[in-house]
């Protein structure tokens, strides 16, 4: 536990001093500001557009649902991309540079390093996600008034959970290959495979990648919690599996 706390403190310091935390917070805050704002102005921009043949586009008044649609869309694309770029070097850069060698020879167990890195990355990602969500929520209330959510945790934590999966995958990739290419490659393979698998409707409910785009179906009542449960369970299982594999691989890795 001592080694875990020592390494977590080092990771937090690194996140702060290498501007990892600031970059993530700024990008995620922007997502939070842009989502309701885009939802608000999009009808004004697009309404009245001539679609050709005298057909004029008429859009309905935006609602809070449009704000959350934008939120899920922004977070699953720009937000995830920022998060991936910020954390891609989590294991990879330490292994390629050799900065872990003095640490490991001081007695910090290898498994502790993996768990501490995942823990701190989780804290930062959660913080960034929370900042984004709180800003979006505040503006959504400001523009459209308070709203009741039936299943707020499941509704809004789904993209966060996919972010956690990406973190675990990047740690695994970095541990396996010891460079950024490994971290990014593993995530790319999973994302591409996930999107290809989505073409099969019978597999879609089990595909964690679908969670990245959010659980809008819970907001508009078109889906129930049970519809997302298999994908959430598989996502959690995949995170745990990635971490276990990372520890096993790292323990056997010749440094």
């Amino acid at each position, binding site marked *: 536990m*001592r*080694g875990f706390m*020592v*390494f977590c*403190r*080092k990771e937090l*310091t*690194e996140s702060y*001093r*290498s501007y990892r935390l600031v970059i993530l917070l700024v990008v995620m805050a922007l997502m939070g500001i842009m989502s309701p704002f885009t939802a608000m102005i999009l009808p004004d921009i697009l309404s009245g557009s001539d679609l050709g043949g005298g057909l004029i586009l008429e859009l309905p008044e935006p609602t809070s649902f449009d704000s959350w649609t934008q939120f899920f869309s922004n977070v699953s694309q720009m937000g995830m991309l920022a998060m991936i770029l910020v954390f891609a070097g989590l294991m990879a850069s330490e292994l390629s*540079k*050799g*900065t872990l*060698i*003095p*640490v*490991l*020879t*001081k*007695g*910090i*167990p*290898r498994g502790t390093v993996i768990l501490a890195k995942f823990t701190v990355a989780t804290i930062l990602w959660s913080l960034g996600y929370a900042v984004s969500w709180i800003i979006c929520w505040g503006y959504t209330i400001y523009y459209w008034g308070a709203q009741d959510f039936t299943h707020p945790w499941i509704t809004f934590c789904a993209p966060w959970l996919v972010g956690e999966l990406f973190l675990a995958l990047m740690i695994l990739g970095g541990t396996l290959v010891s460079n950024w290419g490994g971290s990014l490659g593993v995530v790319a393979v999973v994302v591409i495979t996930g999107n290809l698998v989505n073409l099969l409707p019978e597999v879609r409910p089990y595909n964690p990648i679908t969670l990245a785009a959010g659980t809008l179906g819970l907001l508009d009542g078109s889906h129930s919690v049970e519809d997302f449960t298999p994908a959430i369970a598989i996502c959690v299982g995949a995170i745990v599996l990635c971490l276990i594999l990372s520890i096993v691989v790292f*323990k*056997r890795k*010749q*440094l």
Partner: protein
Amino acid sequence: MNEVLSIQNLHKSFGAAKVLQGISLGVPAGSVYGFLGENGAGKTTTMKIILGLLQGDRGQIHVCGEKVRFGHTTTNRFLGYLPDVPQFYPYMRGREYLKFSGEAAGLSHSQIHQRSGELLELVGLGTVKKKIGAYSRGMKQRLGMAQALIHQPAVLICDEPTSALDPTGRQEILDILRAIRATTTVIFSTHILGDVERICDRAAVLHQGRIVLEGSLGDLKARQGSQGLRLEFASREDLTRFCERVLDEFIELISQTSVIVRTTDIRQEHQVIGMLADATIVPLSLEAISPTIESLFLEAVR
């Protein structure tokens, strides 16, 4: 003799390349042990296996009586390690890194405070405030030495600590090693033979994955014996008379009145003295040439 490190029959291959082929050695407590070898001889591999960073294929290693296991760090509490190119977190300052290292090693805050101060003074970084990212190579090497010693290890393992440094930097590192030898056993790999001669009391030569020479520096030199005799004569005439009695292939002229006679054993040296007596020449000086660590090394890896 109390050994802090013992290696028995250690083998290691990387693919088809057999890097270590059954090396065995023992490092007595309190010694400064030079681990010599050409580049690629297997020095770093051996050190990393001792630290549990690499897995040996066969053989056993004991540090302070405890068996080393790959991937485990328990025996590392006895060890301090300075890699050949130490890498640190560039955003930290030296004192901060030592605090982190001390915490990782399980020291208390007061111990860390005290040790950091002592070690930063020892390595000459006591007044340096800048971040490690702005350190020179020599400064990083000295900080590496401090972090390796923060937990007062019984054994300090240094992988070519002086190879990439300028003469001043090298001298500083050797001075530090000399300063800690009273409390810490030092094992350091190098291919700078002069460094071994200056501070080591024992040495092993690793060649093509095998230990080809091992022992105290005094024993190693005595084992090889003299490499020749250096003679200084009173006149050129004496030198000429002497040279007429010795085969040209054994003679190396140094000046008009001095010469080195290459010998391979003590019997030949007796013959040279006999020749002097026969020719009734009394040289001004006669000196046996001791082998240098360089000549021992070259002989061992031939």
